[in-house]
């Protein structure tokens, strides 16, 4: 059992690290094609990452160890997130709870590392980015908890792997209002948490609109490489959770080689299709004013709340 779950975790990490740059490449290429550009190609994020990781960072004199440690903490928390959630298989490591509270806690660890990094530089943009990031995190985390909690009521457990397993066994529950409301709320908060449009624009350089970019302005070289990969991994992990909760087919239920292979193929297809759809949808929307972002997130919180209420009425 332990060997099996270790194998599953190794597969999760290897898949996440290799697939993530391709996912970002597919998203950027989709957007470029819809805008009439050619784009850098699907492998461009790989090239960027390889280059960044082989570059020596330039750190400002007087900078504290936070500048070095925050990227590592973000990277570690993202890897842990990818290990905990059921991407390929629902086999869980005994003794380590793949509980939704643990997952949200690990997510918050990366968020706090990024916010500290923004504050560390002591520049106006860094502090502004950090404060905006924490505002969004404070609105996002309760919704993540509540929407997955709504899905955990019918399953009778708060472990993500068990929830996915229960939804796989009972496919009729995928289309009931509880599930639809919760998934919709989750999609909105995933978009907010990973800094996509309409909450944050990942390709902006306009100082007054940036959130994520503003916090990482002072990091370069290797530090920036870890920050980029860490935040991309969060996107993979959260999209993976949404994909496997909304469409749980293909997720392996044991550690047999065949079911793992099917699981890897299924999550790869799901992530790439979902990523391309997200990128295509982003072409049609503009960034929201920052003061209207809480309204969007409050809306998704209401949906998650309704979903929880409904789950007690239905079950």
């Amino acid at each position, binding site marked *: 059992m332990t060997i099996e779950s270790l194998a599953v975790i190794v597969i999760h990490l290897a898949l996440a690290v290799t697939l993530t740059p391709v996912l970002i490449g597919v998203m950027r290429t989709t957007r*470029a*094609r*819809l*805008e*009439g*550009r*050619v*784009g*850098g*190609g699907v492998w*461009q994020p790989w*090239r*960027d990452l*390889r*280059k960044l990781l*082989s*570059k*020596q*960072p*330039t750190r*400002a004199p007087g900078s504290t160890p936070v500048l070095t440690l925050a990227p590592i903490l973000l990277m570690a928390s993202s890897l842990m997130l990818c290990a905990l959630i059921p991407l390929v298989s629902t086999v869980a490591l005994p003794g380590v709870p793949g509980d939704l509270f643990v997952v949200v806690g690990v997510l918050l660890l990366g968020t706090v590392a990024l916010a500290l990094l923004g504050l560390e530089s002591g520049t106006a943009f860094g502090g502004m980015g950090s404060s905006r990031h924490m505002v969004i995190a404070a609105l996002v985390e309760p919704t993540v908890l509540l929407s997955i909690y709504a899905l955990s009521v019918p399953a009778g457990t708060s472990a993500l792997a068990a929830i996915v397993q229960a939804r796989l066994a009972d496919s009729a529950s995928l289309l009931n209002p509880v599930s639809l409301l919760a998934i919709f709320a989750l999609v909105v908060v995933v978009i907010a948490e990973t800094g996509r449009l309409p909450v944050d624009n990942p390709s902006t*350089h306009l*100082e007054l609109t*940036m959130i994520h*970019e503003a916090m990482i*302005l*002072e*990091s*370069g*070289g290797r530090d*920036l490489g870890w920050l980029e990969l860490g935040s991309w991994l969060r996107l993979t992990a959260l999209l993976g959770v949404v994909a496997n909760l909304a469409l749980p087919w293909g997720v392996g239920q044991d550690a047999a080689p065949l079911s793992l292979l099917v699981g890897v193929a299924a999550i790869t297809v799901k992530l790439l299709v979902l990523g391309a759809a997200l990128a295509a949808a982003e*072409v*049609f929307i503009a960034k929201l004013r920052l003061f209207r972002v809480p309204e969007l997130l409050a809306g998704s919180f209401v949906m998650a709340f309704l979903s929880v209420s409904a789950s007690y009425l239905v079950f």
Partner: protein
Amino acid sequence: MTTARLLKLIARTGRVAEPLDRGDYGLQLRDGFVAPRTLRGSVQVRHVDAGSCNGCELELGAAFGPVYDAERIGARLVASPRHADVVAVTGVVTQNMAEPLLNTVDATPHPRVVVSIGDCTRGCGEFVNSYAVAGSVDDIVDVDVHIPGCPPPPGAIIAALRAVTGR
């Protein structure tokens, strides 16, 4: 614009990017300049306007626009010198911009490449001997690649970036 009209526009427009311009444009490389191996296939560009008339900025904007599409050779404009591999400098260096230019180049991690765009960056062009000018770009920093022209066409800027990325 409604979603349906935007979809129609996307379908009608198709691809606006022109085929990649592979001209030479008389780039002047520093003696013994070899593009760093690390930067093959991917460069991030930080643009510094040291006192330009904004002619070169228009061309730089066009080079990263949809028609010339510098992104396909792996180049991207970034918001911070810490993220950059290439510092692209335009214009003569005015008294007020000499120090910020030096600071920007200093803040860029190694290996870095300094690209100077336009005739003003070598010999000050129209603005030679002005009281407001501290010198041309190659008086202040070591320039690796110089793009001649007043202003140089976007294809020349693409050629200079291709000399660095090798794509």
